[in-house]
């Protein structure tokens, strides 16, 4: 029932998107005609600004017609309505006679559409705050869940063992600096945080089923992580399937997540790249490097590649270890 209602809200939002599109096209293509209709044709400034207002309408249209849940973006139209009403308010005081009547009529239309926009935006807001909605779940977790999987062409036992020794993990997890273990089964993790900071936490293994599953939980530290990795035989002798599930609680919360996405360090991509490197290590012996990204796969490096030409020797920290005698 409420799903039906949600869909109705989105349909309403899409309809408003079409209204924006129609108005936007008219304002851009025939600014003079729209100015006359709205009674602002006496003001050269209003006529000059008309195509800009049209461009704004087209932006609303793109936002509303381009998304899967357009109702969540109707507030942009409400903001636009406020701008339009402010402009019309100024026009009312500056016009007379027939022009003034046209301004009043335009204002009435905009007010009616504003009411519809506010109504739709309010319905979308109610939807967001309802228990069970994705947004509410997100807030409840105050973090995020990640899942990634890879198939490695090696026997399950070997794959499990490599992962079980957590001190191996920084070898393929780009953000980990080090992991050290203590005798009581706890481990101390140290990772690179944003802007050169270091993040540390302790973790302990909660469950360990040889060749099948390892799950762990963090204890103390600002980063909250619970995770598990499952190992299963891939069908038909294809090696081992690895499924990783991670729940994060970041010190920076959702803002940090958004920032990470914008800078190309999307956590989901990081986990996938980590698994890809794990596969490289298991199958080929080490992380595969190219001159465009000498430190191996990493989302940020992929966005900011060096040119594909040999790197000068000064930056050879990675290579020194494997360089053979000339």
């Amino acid at each position: 029932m409420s799903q039906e209602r949600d869909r109705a809200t989105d349909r309403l939002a899409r309809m408003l998107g079409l209204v924006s599109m129609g108005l936007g096209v008219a304002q851009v293509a025939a600014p003079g005609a729209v100015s006359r209709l709205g009674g602002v044709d006496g003001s050269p400034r209003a006529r000059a600004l008309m195509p800009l207002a049209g461009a704004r309408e087209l932006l609303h249209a793109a936002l509303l017609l381009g998304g899967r849940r357009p109702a969540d973006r109707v507030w942009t139209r409400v903001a636009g309505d406020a701008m339009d009403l402010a402009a019309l308010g100024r026009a009312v005081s500056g016009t007379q006679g027939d022009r003034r009547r046209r301004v009043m009529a335009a204002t009435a239309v905009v007010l009616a559409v504003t009411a519809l926009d506010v109504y739709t935006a309010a319905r979308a807001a109610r939807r967001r705050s309802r228990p069970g909605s994705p947004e509410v779940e997100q807030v409840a977790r105050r973090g995020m869940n990640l899942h990634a999987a890879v198939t490695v062409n090696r026997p399950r036992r070997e794959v499990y063992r490599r992962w079980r020794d957590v001190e191996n993990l920084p070898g393929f997890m780009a953000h980990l600096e080090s992991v050290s273990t203590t005798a009581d089964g706890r481990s101390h993790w140290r990772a690179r945080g944003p802007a050169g900071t270091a993040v540390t936490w302790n973790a302990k293994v909660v469950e360990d089923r040889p060749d099948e599953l390892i799950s762990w939980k963090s204890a103390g530290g600002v980063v909250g992580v619970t995770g598990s990795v499952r190992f299963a035989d891939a069908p038909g002798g294809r090696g081992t399937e690895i499924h990783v599930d991670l729940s994060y609680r970041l010190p920076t919360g959702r803002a940090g997540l958004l920032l990470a996405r914008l800078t190309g360090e999307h956590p989901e991509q990081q986990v996938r790249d980590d698994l890809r490197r794990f596969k490289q290590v298991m199958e080929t012996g080490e992380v595969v490097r190219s001159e465009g990204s000498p430190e191996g796969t990493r989302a940020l490096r992929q966005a900011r590649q060096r040119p594909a030409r040999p790197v000068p020797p000064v930056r050879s920290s990675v290579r020194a270890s494997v360089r053979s005698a000339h």
Partner: protein
Amino acid sequence: MKAACWMGRNTVEVHEVPDPRILNARDAVVRITSTAICGSDLHLYDGYVPTMKKGDILGHEFMGEVVEVGPQVSTLKVGDRVVVPFPIACGNCGSCANGMYSVCENSNPNAGMAEKLMGHSPSGIFGYSHMLGGYPGGQAQYARVPFADVGPIKIEDDLPDEKVLFLSDILPTGWMGAEMCDIKPGDTIAVWGAGPVGQFAVASAYLMGAERVIAIDRFPYRLRKAAQAGAQTLDYEEVNVLEALREMTAGRGPDACIDAVGMEAHHPVAAVHAYDRTRQAARMETERPHALREAIMACRNGGTVSVVGVYGGLLDKFPMGALMNRSLTLKAGQCHVQRYTRPLLERIRNGDIDPSFVISHRMRLEDAPRGYEMFKNKQDECNKIVLSAV
């Protein structure tokens, strides 16, 4: 060392760059003796392959002498003479284990980029964009060769460079184009594009027992080369290809069609060419797939269309109805070169094929910029340029 670098659309410059060094334990460094400009390099030159970066070293067809090996390489030693396959392949992953070297799962450090465009990532390729690894190419004096224990093939006798260089790409690529046609006695094979790959596809199809091979192009000198390899030829600017093929096969259509053209095809009707050229320029499609469209339309019912021409992304007006309703089979792929180097070297040795017939120009590495321009504009009957790096 000197290297031919991509400096933007239609610009190649020879620069002095640092010498390559070992980065991974299974690397080797090769001092390059001969390298070639490939038709697919022109897609980079023309700016149609995304994720190129100014300064990238070009080239994926090269051979030379091993000068350094990483600690994990036991199959090669300093001084060995090798030809290097263009796809970089680890030899250990599921794809390599199945002989699908050009879709190696480990050799592309930038797999995430390729996944965004193609769903999954193919292998890394020398000098062929950052989406395919960000590896420097072989139009240089030296190159680092990853997984040197898998790809490079040793040349132990005195065959000259010119006879074995093309084992790196175009000979196996033409061969695989013909192999994908699953040729049976009596088959007629049509090949779109009579450039070097098309010329090798013609020769390969005959070696595989084709009754007749028809080559389609618009440059007479290229059609002449294909004819030397035994093909009947069609100039698509002179004849209607579909009608001609129908006539030549008594209405059946060719049993299999090979697209050795790829993303920058040319169309004899100016308006059609302009349509795709415009959409490509506006980045609304990355391909101008005239040859592929025509190959699908021409192929006999139940036949096979084999694609070895390079495509980059998305295309438009694809005749899916013909493909589906007429039970056609579409096969495609970057060549799994490592699979073919040994048997083809054997065929070169025993004289079945002498690949050097495609060469039209020999230049020095320093002349690469002029070579690219000549090759692109088909000046001086340019068919294949070999650059000497020594």
